[in-house]
């Protein structure tokens, strides 16, 4: 390499450093501007594989997504594009970072109670260790507890009975060391029957507490 060429290289690198300094001093200007747009992909449920349905719409039209990895794109104010399925690798390439950050599915339990009582049935009492274990296995858990009754008795007294049942479960959850503020207790009384019955009907499957550990 001649002396002159070395000088040119030196000058060029100085000029480049100058460019870099200038870039630092001013906010970077994006070179490529993508038009405002969106890509929407319907996926099978991560746990049971069920594929739902979705509608993507704007003033210019609607696309109905049905089937695994059905997708549509929107650019600017144009109508959603014709639906086409993506393959799994495309989905992972674009959406892997978001998909891998989904929290685990909530653990759900239903515990049953004796007639007009906040005492668990023997079978349900045997399930308590599983509930406690779910709380222990869940990072940063919070728990929803909903009490229910059958239609025996008045609606008002059943709200109260449902609440007593839910609070009984709450006490057990507190025993795991879970903070009270992380347990949401409510009662639906006789308003949300698992098995539909007429009023004043004793039905063991309706005397329950639903627990969601998430």
């Amino acid at each position: 390499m001649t002396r002159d060429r070395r000088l040119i290289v030196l000058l060029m690198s100085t000029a480049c450093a100058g460019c870099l300094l200038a870039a630092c001093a001013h906010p970077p200007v994006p070179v490529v501007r993508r038009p405002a747009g969106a890509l929407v992909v319907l996926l099978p449920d991560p746990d049971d594989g069920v594929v739902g349905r979705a509608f993507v719409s704007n003033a210019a039209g609607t696309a109905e997504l049905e089937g695994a990895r059905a997708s549509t794109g929107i650019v600017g104010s144009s109508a959603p594009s014709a639906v086409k399925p993506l393959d799994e690798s495309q989905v992972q390439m674009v959406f892997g970072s978001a998909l891998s950050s989904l929290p685990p599915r909530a653990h759900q339990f239903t515990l049953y109670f004796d007639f007009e009582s906040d005492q668990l049935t023997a079978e349900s009492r045997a399930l308590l260790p599983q509930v406690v274990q779910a709380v222990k296995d869940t990072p940063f858990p919070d728990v929803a507890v909903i009490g229910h009754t059958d239609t025996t008795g008045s609606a008002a007294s059943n709200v109260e009975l449902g609440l007593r049942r839910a609070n009984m479960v709450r006490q057990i959850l507190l025993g795991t060391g879970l903070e009270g503020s992380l347990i949401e207790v409510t009662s639906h009384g006789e308003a949300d029957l698992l098995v539909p019955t007429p009023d004043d009907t004793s039905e063991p499957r309706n005397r329950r507490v639903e627990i969601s550990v998430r």
Partner: protein
Amino acid sequence: MASLRSIAGAVVVVMFPVWASAADPAAAGRIKVVSGPVFIVRAAGTIQATAGQALFEADTLRTGADGRVGITLNDDTRISLGPGSEARLDQFVYAPADKRGSLVLKVVRGLIAYVSGRIAKLSPDGVKLETPNAIVGVRGTTLVLRVDAP
């Protein structure tokens, strides 16, 4: 029997404040997964998100260039954001006792994954993911979307 009922009524009145204060009734959900820089933007200011934190209606989640976040809402809906993303929980109503529920998530930019919870079952037209140029109505169960801001 009538006196028994009035006793039961009195118990409800006495117990109500106890369980109302037991949980945080205004929280819409909680942050479960955080990696990299993630922020919650709310009227009171912007705070760094940490796992376990409560999330409220009208909160905005924002992730940095290598940030990710996953949340679980009170109806068991799960939502996550990839890097460089922003989304606002515009509306969250979950009142299963009244068979009511609605969820509106405004996606400003970035990558979002959504897995439906109980609101989608309670109210099939109640879940909307809004992007700047289209609205997605989700009838369950799982969906991903990317919004390219201009």
